[in-house]
């Protein structure tokens, strides 16, 4: 494969900078306040949004809380062991979280109820059903589209500081659409949206998230190889351009029926 890639060929016929087909299905989990099933090639992720009330995080007393988790289900590949999240899954969840959080996609400042005491708590959980590479982007797109399609319960503060669910629903206060683009280096080539096979022989990985204005919001270099400064600057530029393409696609796929 390394040899093929050095000649700008990929096993599935894609160009080096070509993403796989992205499919998004919304609302598949009726019990969730928002949900999405994303297929990026053969990688498949279901994300669900659940909204409750709870205490704010320390130091962020006037903001709603956003809590993101991921589980790579043992259905996803023969190599997954059921159990608490391992190092890689923790990194995955934290990188996806960082894209959402640092881009300030959700305006958490609008989700406090009683500052310092009670705020909206938004759980976004990802279940990875099938693994065929690039879980960073697949999970990120699932989370972003689940949030975009979500309807939050409207809570109200009553006298005596009781917080009640009014039964009404509202759109979440969203400000931007963060899109992550993951590239991996194999030999001297840098390719986008790697499959499981490609990840198995990658030297290094880089995931770059941009917001709707094309600004960078988060970045994570991963794996045990290294990049030159130029490779990184180039990857950033590609992430900006490809990110905009994916953003357009996500908008299109999530606007059906909205």
């Amino acid at each position, binding site marked *: 494969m390394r040899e093929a890639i050095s000649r700008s060929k990929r096993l599935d016929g894609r160009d080096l900078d070509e993403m796989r087909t992205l499919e998004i299905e919304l609302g598949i989990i009726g019990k*969730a306040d928002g949900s999405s099933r994303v297929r990026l090639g053969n990688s*498949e992720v*279901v994300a669900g949004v659940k909204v*409750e009330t709870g205490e704010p995080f320390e130091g962020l007393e006037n903001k709603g809380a956003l809590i993101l988790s991921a589980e790579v*289900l043992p259905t*996803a590949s023969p190599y997954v062991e*059921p159990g608490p999240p391992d190092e890689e899954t923790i990194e995955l969840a934290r990188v996806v979280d960082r894209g959402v959080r640092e881009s300030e996609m959700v305006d958490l400042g609008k989700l406090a109820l009683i500052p310092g005491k009670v705020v909206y708590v938004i759980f976004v959980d990802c279940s990875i059903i*099938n693994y065929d590479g690039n879980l960073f982007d697949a999970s990120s797109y699932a989370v972003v589209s689940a949030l975009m399609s979500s309807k939050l319960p409207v809570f109200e503060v009553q006298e005596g500081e009781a917080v009640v669910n009014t039964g009404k629903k509202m759109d979440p206060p969203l400000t931007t659409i963060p899109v992550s683009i993951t590239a991996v280096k194999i030999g001297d080539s840098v390719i986008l949206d790697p499959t499981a096979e490609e990840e198995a022989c990658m030297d290094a990985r880089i995931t770059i998230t941009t917001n709707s204005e094309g600004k960078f919001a988060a970045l994570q270099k991963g794996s045990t190889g290294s990049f030159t400064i130029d490779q990184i600057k180039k990857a950033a530029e590609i992430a900006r351009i490809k990110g905009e393409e994916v953003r357009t696609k996500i908008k299109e796929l999530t606007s059906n029926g909205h």
Partner: protein
Amino acid sequence: MVQTRSLIDEHGRRTDGRTMDELRNVKIQVGIVKNADGSAYIEFGKNRIIAAVYGPREVHPKHLAQPDRCVLRCRYHMSPFSTDTRKNPAPSRREVEISKVMREALEPSLMLEDYPRAAIDVFVEVLQADGGSRCAGITAASVALADAGINMRDIVPACAAGKVDGKIVLDINDVEDKEGSADMPLAYMPHLERVTLLQLDGILNQEEFNECLDKALQGCKMIYEIQRRALIQKYFGDEQELKEES
């Protein structure tokens, strides 16, 4: 269980419009998890469940291998967003128990002696939970085992019956489970005519007990037909199915 409102109306219709002997909508798709050796996706009422099978394969750690048979392992797990209130992702005692009875419900259907020293893993993920998720999970898992090409003595459909407003009804949904007075999930091998899972929560007299058992049995036979069609659909396509039906 608390009885707070009428769950069956004057026309014998239940809260979701079903008659007493009617199943919820059940849809099974075979082979939807690309990497698995076998898989199935089931919609059973509002249940949304994926079952994936890996194996027969090597056992890790090795000392768990059996010299004369295959080890069957089973995990029933609920995604955090599957329930009304967010579920903690760590396995609950309930999930541990269901994983056990699910394994015991599937094991009699498998020719485990054909795969000595190996293991088969069945992973059941509940993406959305409604009443009867364990029955739906067993139903999907049995189809996934068939899809994986495991040697089987029979398919295992599962279905509950229960008591609601004093009447024995088929296929308890979420509301009926919470507000009804009894729930009896059953798994049954239709050709071998054997019960592989049976549980009961709630009060039944002897007569109701037998009626409930018989009704759940009928449900299993109906589920079995749906399992069979889903497998035919996968392996022979729509055409074959039409021919067969004609």
